[in-house]
């Protein structure tokens, strides 16, 4: 393994251990104010829900990092990319891990939103890691747009709650919300964000596209973390969700729809990762249904389901990657019989598949037991739907595993690194351990449910060897699933038709049409705006000028224009102002670029002198320095341009149509600016201005110079923003001119 892989693995392991220790020592947290006047706090707590998702993010993250240590170098070799691209991969993976842990532990809705968006950004770069491929770029953008646009709904929901209750703190909100329109609205908006993130119908189309990502990324993001963040949000805002029965029922509907759409399409996919992606859509459908059914069983079941699914599904995604590395094939129709060449992989992924199919002795059996139990408690109709969903899962997961590992060998496999199979076997082993010894996993799910419900949850799972409803339902699900596997001819045509119908009429078309029309509109406006320099400047100045003009017309003019008096002491100032004005007029004359630049600089220097006379030495100093730097920069940039074209431009004559239009426009603008400034300067200031307060407070800031105190203290955040812009401008220029090389 390379150094970045080792470092990432160590960090992931450390984070996992720390999370466990944190859970052991009982929900530690930190709470710091960072903008108390806005009610914003840096507030984190490792509660049950936080522990569950942090453990998933760091634990499965660790397995994925180990796997990537072997996978990414091979991947880069296939694509003939330099080895240093590995750093980028592991950096992004760690960024994702951090944002996921931050999301899971945030106790403040604004923080939650920030980490929510951070996961989306990290996932954008991870999905688009093969940036030379158009497919990967489109997929990355689609994931970012779908989850990013719906993230705004999360923010709106947050603000709705803040407007009503005046706090962003989740515990405080949970304590004070009462059922009603406001909470239902906010919860609906937030739930939509969550559903889009966990790829539920009708937002599900981004997930299969995101399979353009490298396999470890899919295993991490699209099984255990990014997609799980969606249901995490449902768990976090469950107290708001449960205020409205209608909303919970809506979740049940969406969950079942996703379950069946994902399940049916998964039955028809040939590419391994596509099959797994649709299976993820379907599996998170289960979780959404469980949250929708609610009650203790539903909420504990949802958390338990997330654990079971994350373990099993990430193992299967890693299997898909290992199989592709070993054989070079990614399609079910090209694969088969790999149990002979890759027995360890067959065993590990077999356990994981058995877990998803909910066979006894795996953790998956209990996930389905809780699922059936919640269904039975609600109504017989729901119970039947849960059986059908479980049967679908059985069928497509069976199809995956049998297709890859049983039957005649189709594609020969060469040996792969133990790091590619090890994590799969380990995750598969955990699936088995969870089936034999479910207590720790159930304790985790109970703790998570406690955080959602706000009350103690103690659901226990055992193997019952009797004819209770859950066992019978599981048996019928196996039977239906096995029948479907045995006779594919019965359903193949119908499933294919459904899948094709979805492609023809599905929500992805809406997305594509929307993006296309937005692009066209943007192109059109861009075309008008930047056709030449004049339209570009006009696009800023004309709307701005019109607004100012409206303001001018609306302002009462009585006494607004006064003429002051001059005495002898002002002579120098008047002279300097006259110089500045002359210099400004002179800028219209030169034809050579360099001359024009120097004349324009002279305007700036004369204004600096004006500041000095008016008693603003700080401003004068800055004006001189900035003017000098800008002039040098302009000279440098002119030197970059071809001499010939500069000469040609200098020799260009103004076309006759512009000879009158341009001076007229300029004069009108100047007159308007003159009137506005004159009007503003004629007003005596009212009351204590901010400036006076700054002067008064300066000694408190241990300063004698007001300007410095304003820059570093009173308006320090503005300064921080401004210097950040300076830094970004520097990096941008380096990107434009030297492909991002800074030195």
């Amino acid at each position, binding site marked *: 393994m390379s150094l970045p892989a080792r470092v990432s693995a160590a960090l992931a392991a450390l984070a996992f251990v720390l999370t466990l220790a944190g859970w052991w020592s009982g929900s530690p947290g930190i709470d*710091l*104010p*960072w*903008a*108390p*006047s806005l009610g914003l706090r*840096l507030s984190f707590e490792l509660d049950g829900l936080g522990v569950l998702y942090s453990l998933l993010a760091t634990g499965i993250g660790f397995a994925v990092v180990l796997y990537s240590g072997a996978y990414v170098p091979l991947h880069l070799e296939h694509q003939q990319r330099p080895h240093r691209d590995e750093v980028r991969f592991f950096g992004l993976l760690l960024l994702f891990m951090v944002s996921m842990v931050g999301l899971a532990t945030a106790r403040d809705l604004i923080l939650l939103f920030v980490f929510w968006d951070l996961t989306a950004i990290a996932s954008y770069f991870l999905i688009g890691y093969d940036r030379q491929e158009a497919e990967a770029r489109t997929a990355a953008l689609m994931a970012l747009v779908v989850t990013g646009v719906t993230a705004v709904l999360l923010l709106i929901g947050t603000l709705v709650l803040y407007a009503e209750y005046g706090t962003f703190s989740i515990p405080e909100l949970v304590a004070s919300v009462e059922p009603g329109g406001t909470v239902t609205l906010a919860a609906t908006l937030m739930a939509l964000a969550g559903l889009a993130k966990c790829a539920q119908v009708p937002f599900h189309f981004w997930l299969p596209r995101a399979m353009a990502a490298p396999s470890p990324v899919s295993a991490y993001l699209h099984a255990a973390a990014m997609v799980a963040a969606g249901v995490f949000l449902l768990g976090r805002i469950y107290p708001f969700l449960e205020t409205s029965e209608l909303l919970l029922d809506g979740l049940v509907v969406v969950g079942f729809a996703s379950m069946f759409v994902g399940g049916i399409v998964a039955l028809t996919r040939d590419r391994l990762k596509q099959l797994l992606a649709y299976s993820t859509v379907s599996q998170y459908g289960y979780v959404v249904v469980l949250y929708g059914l609610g009650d203790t069983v539903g909420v504990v079941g949802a958390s338990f389901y997330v654990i079971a699914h994350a373990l099993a599904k990430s193992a299967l995604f890693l299997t898909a990657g290992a199989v592709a590395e070993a054989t070079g094939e990614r399609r079910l129709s090209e694969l088969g019989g790999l149990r002979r060449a890759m027995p360890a992989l067959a065993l590990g992924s077999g356990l994981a598949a058995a877990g998803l199919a909910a066979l006894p002795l795996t953790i998956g059996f209990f996930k389905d037991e809780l699922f059936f139990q919640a269904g039975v408690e609600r109504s017989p109709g729901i119970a039947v739907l849960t059986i059908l969903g479980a049967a679908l899962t059985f069928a497509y997961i069976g199809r995956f595993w049998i297709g890859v590992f049983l039957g005649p060998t189709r594609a020969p496999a060469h040996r792969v690194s133990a790091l590619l199979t090890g994590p799969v076997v380990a995750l598969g082993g955990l699936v088995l351990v969870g089936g034999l010894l479910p207590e720790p996993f159930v304790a985790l799910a109970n703790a998570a449910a406690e955080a959602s419900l706000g009350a103690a949850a103690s659901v226990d799972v055992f193997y019952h060897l009797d004819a209770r409803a859950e066992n019978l339902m599981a048996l019928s699900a196996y039977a239906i699933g096995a029948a479907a596997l045995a006779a594919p001819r019965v359903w193949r045509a119908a499933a294919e038709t459904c899948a094709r119908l979805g492609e023809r009429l599905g929500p992805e078309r809406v997305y594509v049409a929307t993006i296309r029309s937005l692009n066209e509109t943007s192109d059109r406006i861009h075309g008008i705006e930047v056709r030449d320099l004049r339209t570009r400047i006009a696009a800023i100045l004309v709307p701005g000028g019109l607004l100012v003009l409206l303001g001018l017309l609306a302002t009462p003019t009585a006494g607004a224009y006064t003429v002051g008096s001059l005495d002898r002491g002002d002579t120098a100032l008047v002279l300097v102002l006259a110089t500045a004005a002359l210099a400004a007029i002179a800028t219209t004359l030169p034809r050579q670029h360099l001359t024009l630049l120097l004349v324009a600089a002279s305007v700036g220097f004369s204004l600096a002198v004006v500041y000095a006379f008016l008693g603003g*030495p*700080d401003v004068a*100093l*800055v004006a001189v*320095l*900035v003017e*000098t*730097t800008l002039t*040098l*920069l302009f000279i*440098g*940039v002119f*030197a*970059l341009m071809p001499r010939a074209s500069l000469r040609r431009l200098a020799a260009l004559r103004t076309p006759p149509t512009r000879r009158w239009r341009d001076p007229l426009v300029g004069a009108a603008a100047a007159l308007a600016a003159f009137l506005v400034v004159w009007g503003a300067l004629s007003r005596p200031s009212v009351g204590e201005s901010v400036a006076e307060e700054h002067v008064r407070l300066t000694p*408190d*800031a*241990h*300063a*004698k*110079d007001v*300007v*410095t*105190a304003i*820059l*570093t*203290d009173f308006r*320090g*955040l503005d*300064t*921080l923003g401004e*210097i*950040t812009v*300076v*830094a970004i*401008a*520097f990096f941008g*220029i*380096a990107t434009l*001119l*030297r492909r991002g090389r*800074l*030195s």
Partner: protein
Amino acid sequence: MTSLLTQVVVRLLLAPTIVIAAAVLAKGYSSVGDGFSAGVIAALGVIAVYLVLGAEQADRLLPVRLAPVGAIAGLLITLVVTFSSVVRGEPLLTHAPPPGADVIHLGTLELITAVAFDVGVFLLVFGAVVGILRTVALARSEAGS
């Protein structure tokens, strides 16, 4: 293009320029000047060397390759100062020591966190201005070669 006289003068001027920049930075709290001005003054000194001696010689003479490092370090310093108050349990960018408290003096320079912030601004502005002009100069020599 440049005479021997300018070449000598520009080298001689560099040290005083840096000293003036340092003075402007240190005296920022009691008189004219602050980190921004100091950064630009120091950068102008370096750029003068660049203009007169050319990119290659200037690179050999001065550690300007480190300009991006300076810029990034400056940004980090300002960020650390900004968020350090959060760790102390106060709102963002609350400077220490608080109003009225005693401050250690070094001549006119007072040791307060606002000065550290200003040093960050200085480093960032210095690094960015030198870096930007150097990027343009290098782009030109790369285009020429």
